[in-house]
C-alpha cells in the first residue's frame, strides 16, 4: 500500500467545522466518539444546550479531580459536570424529547452513510462481534437534523459514503449532512451535493466515490 500524505482537515479542525454550523441556542446531542470533540469548539456565547441521553440537559465539560461524581456521567459513561440551568430527567423522558423532535441537531459517527441518507453505525455484522445498539437508533431518527462526522475513507481506503450501506442499518434516510475530512456533503432529494472541499478537487472526489455528486461548492452561503 502506498503511503499517502495526510491531507484535508484534522479531527479537531473537522470538529470546529461542524461546530460552526450549529445554530445559536440549539439543543444538541453529540454522539460518542469523534462528535464529542465538537463541544471543545462551541463558544460559551453560542448558548447551545447539550443533551445527554442518560438523562440531562445542560451538560458541562468532562469532570476532573474533585469534580468527579459517580452519579453524574454522560452517555459514554465519562464523568461530566453540570452547567447553570441544567436539568435531570428519567430515560423515557430523555428519549421522548429525542424521538419527539425536540432536539435541533444530533451529530453521530458512522461506519457508512448511503447516498439517500441511510446510516450504519451500530454493528459491524461480524458473527463474532457482540452487538450493542444503545441510543444510536433513537438518535438517528429523533433529532430535527442528523449530521454525521466521519473520515471519508476507512483505514484501508474504502469510501464510507456509499450508494447502499453494506453494514447493518441504524436508520433509514435520516442523515441530512455528512462532515468529513475531505468534504462537506448535503443529502438532498436530488442527490448528494458537495458543499465544501478541503485539499481535494471535485473531480478527484468523484473518482474516489461511487456516489453521483452535485457540485454546490460555488454557491454563496455556507
Amino acid at each position, binding site marked *: 500500500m502506498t503511503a499517502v500524505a495526510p491531507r484535508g482537515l484534522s479531527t479537531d479542525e473537522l470538529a470546529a467545522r461542524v461546530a460552526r454550523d450549529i445554530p445559536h441556542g440549539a439543543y444538541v446531542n453529540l454522539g460518542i466518539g469523534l462528535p464529542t470533540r465538537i463541544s471543545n469548539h462551541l463558544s460559551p456565547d453560542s448558548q447551545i444546550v447539550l443533551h445527554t441521553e442518560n438523562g440531562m440537559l445542560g451538560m458541562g465539560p468532562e469532570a476532573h479531580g474533585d469534580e468527579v461524581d459517580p452519579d453524574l456521567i454522560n452517555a459514554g459513561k465519562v464523568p461530566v459536570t453540570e452547567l447553570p440551568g441544567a436539568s435531570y430527567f428519567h*430515560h423515557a423522558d430523555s428519549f*421522548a424529547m429525542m424521538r419527539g423532535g425536540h432536539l435541533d441537531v444530533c451529530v453521530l459517527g458512522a461506519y457508512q452513510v448511503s447516498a439517500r441518507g441511510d446510516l450504519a453505525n451500530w454493528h459491524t455484522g461480524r458473527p463474532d462481534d457482540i*452487538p450493542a445498539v444503545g441510543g444510536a437508533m433513537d438518535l438517528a431518527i429523533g433529532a430535527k437534523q442528523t449530521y454525521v462526522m466521519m473520515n471519508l475513507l476507512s483505514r484501508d481506503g474504502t469510501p464510507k459514503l456509499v450508494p447502499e450501506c453494506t453494514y447493518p442499518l441504524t436508520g433509514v434516510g435520516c442523515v441530512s449532512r455528512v462532515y468529513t475530512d475531505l468534504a462537506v456533503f448535503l443529502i438532498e432529494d436530488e442527490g448528494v451535493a458537495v458543499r465544501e472541499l478541503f485539499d481535494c478537487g471535485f473531480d478527484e472526489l468523484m473518482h474516489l466515490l461511487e456516489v453521483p455528486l452535485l457540485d454546490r461548492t460555488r454557491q454563496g452561503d455556507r
Partner: protein
Amino acid sequence: MVSILHEPTAAVAGIPDGATVMIGGFGTAGQPVELIDALIASGATDLTVVNNNAGNGDVGLAALIRTGRVRKIVCSFPRQRDSWHFDQKYRAGEIELELVPQGNLAERIRAAGAGIGAFYTPTGYGTSLADGKETRVIDGRSYVLEYPLRADYALVKAYRADELGNLVYRKTARNFGPIMAAAATTTIVQVEEVVPVGELDPEIIVTPSIYVDRIVRVSAPVPVTEPVGAGR
C-alpha cells in the same frame, strides 16, 4: 403500604427462581449494588434481567451474571470495555440476549407501568432489530409496533425516601429508576437516607410512593468501580 427494612437481604426476600427482575442504573450510575449482592446471596437463579447494560467490572450486575444466575438479559448496550463477565457467558452460549434500542427499552418499560397495550415507534424501522415486527405508516412516516416490558420485581437505587416511600434521585443516577418502579409488580428501593413523612417537598418528588413496596437504607453504598468511558 411500603415496608421499611433494615437489611438488603430482607428487602429482596421472596424473589423466586425464574423471576423477571428490572435493575436500575446506567453503567454504574444508579446501580443498586447492595440489593444485587443480596439477590446473589438469596440464591435466586434462572432470572430474566432488564437493564441498560450487561454489567461493568466485577461487582453488582456483573457479579450476578458471573455467578450464572441470569438466563436472559434484555438490554441496549451489553458490550463495553468492562463487560467481560457478560462477554464470556455470551460467547459460551450461557446467556440469552434480547437487544433493544435504548429509547424503545425505556418506552416499553414506561408503557408497562402506564397500562399501554403496545405502541408504534419510529426507532429501529428498517433495521435488523425490527425484523419480523409489525409496521405501519402513519402520516407518511414508518413505525414499528413494540410491546410493554413488565417485571415481577424492580431493584432501584434512589437518593432519599420518606417513610411513605416517596423518592428523589441524584443527578444522572435517576435514569431508569422512575419507570422501572412503575413497571414491576414489586418495587424494592435502596436509598441513602429515609426521612420522616413531610420532609420531602411534594413539588420535587420524582417517584410517588404508590409505586414503591420496600425500602432499605444503605447509608454508605460501596463505591462502584470508577466510571470508565465504555460506550452508551
